[in-house]
């Protein structure tokens, strides 16, 4: 398979059919002035199922969003277009995520929680945005699986039989891995670089140009969730940390313990956050 063919398929509008037309329309939206958030909110609210899930998620204390959010337009104003877009996208793919890999949604949620906590500790200006890119960091797995199901299953069994990280198995089968595929999707959907780069480079944080801190955080958050053994991302291995990234974040043992404690809380609240 040629990378161009894979890219064309993943960038096509129906690459992920589970996304409702309303969410799809929002995904293609570029930043707009706050004034039209009411209007955008009304459009999204027509999809009642996704609206209910969105409000449930942003109001769950597990994620630590700012206070009571009672409508989509309020969420847009408080969290910004890209965060709401990202969460809606994440929520749209929960079921396919679980079909792609049982445990991938949990892995994604937990990575989001860990990433947000690190972002706050490190004073990153938009912690919700870091959280959103962490929530979507493995979206490329979903896109590869939907569009190339037989090949993706091969990658999964290769990872299992040869004891490989899933990304190496994907590299073997596709000549590229889910981070590249996820980066294509993020750009296609007009996410800002600060949100797209952590998705594209969470395994190779040195390659980021515009979002070094955000990418470093998602890289480490992903690793910590795997280290604790929560969820499933395609293999049961902890990958090596990028030494410079680890050193630059300077997380203390206390920081790590606090993050892991939050993950324990999340693990005991899975029904509430599985949606």
């Amino acid at each position, binding site marked *: 398979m040629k990378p161009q063919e894979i890219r064309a398929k993943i960038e096509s509008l129906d690459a992920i059919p589970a996304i409702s037309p309303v969410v799809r329309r929002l995904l293609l939206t570029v930043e707009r002035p706050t004034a039209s958030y009411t209007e955008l909110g009304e459009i999204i609210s027509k999809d009642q199922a996704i609206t209910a899930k969105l409000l449930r998620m942003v*109001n*769950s*204390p*597990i994620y630590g969003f700012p206070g*009571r*959010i*009672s409508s989509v337009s309020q969420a847009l104003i408080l969290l910004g277009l890209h965060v709401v877009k990202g969460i809606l996208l994440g929520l749209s793919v929960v079921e396919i995520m679980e079909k792609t890999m049982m445990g991938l949604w949990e892995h994604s949620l937990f990575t989001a929680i860990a990433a947000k906590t690190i972002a706050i500790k490190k004073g990153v200006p938009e912690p919700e945005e870091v959280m959103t890119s962490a929530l979507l960091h493995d979206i490329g797995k979903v896109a590869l699986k939907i569009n190339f199901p037989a090949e993706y299953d091969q990658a999964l069994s290769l990872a299992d039989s040869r*004891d490989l*990280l899933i990304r190496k198995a994907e590299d073997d089968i596709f000549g590229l891995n889910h981070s590249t595929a996820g980066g294509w999707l993020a750009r296609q959907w007009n996410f800002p670089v600060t949100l797209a780069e952590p998705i594209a480079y969470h395994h190779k944080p040195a390659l980021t140009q515009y979002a070094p801190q955000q990418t470093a955080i998602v890289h480490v958050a992903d*690793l*910590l969730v*795997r*280290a*604790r*053994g929560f969820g499933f991302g395609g293999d*049961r*291995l*902890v*990958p*090596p*940390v990028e*030494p410079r990234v*680890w*050193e630059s974040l300077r997380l203390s*043992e206390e920081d*790590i*313990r606090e993050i*892991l*404690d939050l993950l*324990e*809380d999340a693990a*005991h*609240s*899975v*029904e*509430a*956050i599985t949606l």
Partner: protein
Amino acid sequence: MMTVSIETVRPGMVLAGSVVNEAGMTLFGKGTVITDVVIERMRSAGAALVMIEGRPTPRKPLNEELSMLDERFRMVHEAPHMAEIQEMVRRHIESLYGAQ
């Protein structure tokens, strides 16, 4: 913190997060001690899941958790910083089991 269904909430438990009604209004704040009245009011407001303080006791024995941890780190023993990270996770897991 753990999330339990309204059916299993018992008097004496403590809320770990506020309970809101459908309009987003807070009915009970974090720290509220559950009573029969509180349960009844949460139920009539349609609350299905409630966050409470505390954690269930771990299901797997500690040594099983620790050997699974070793398994997960088996490829990266030599990699920089990974022993340090594993050690922190190990101490965290041990702390979940109290003084054992």
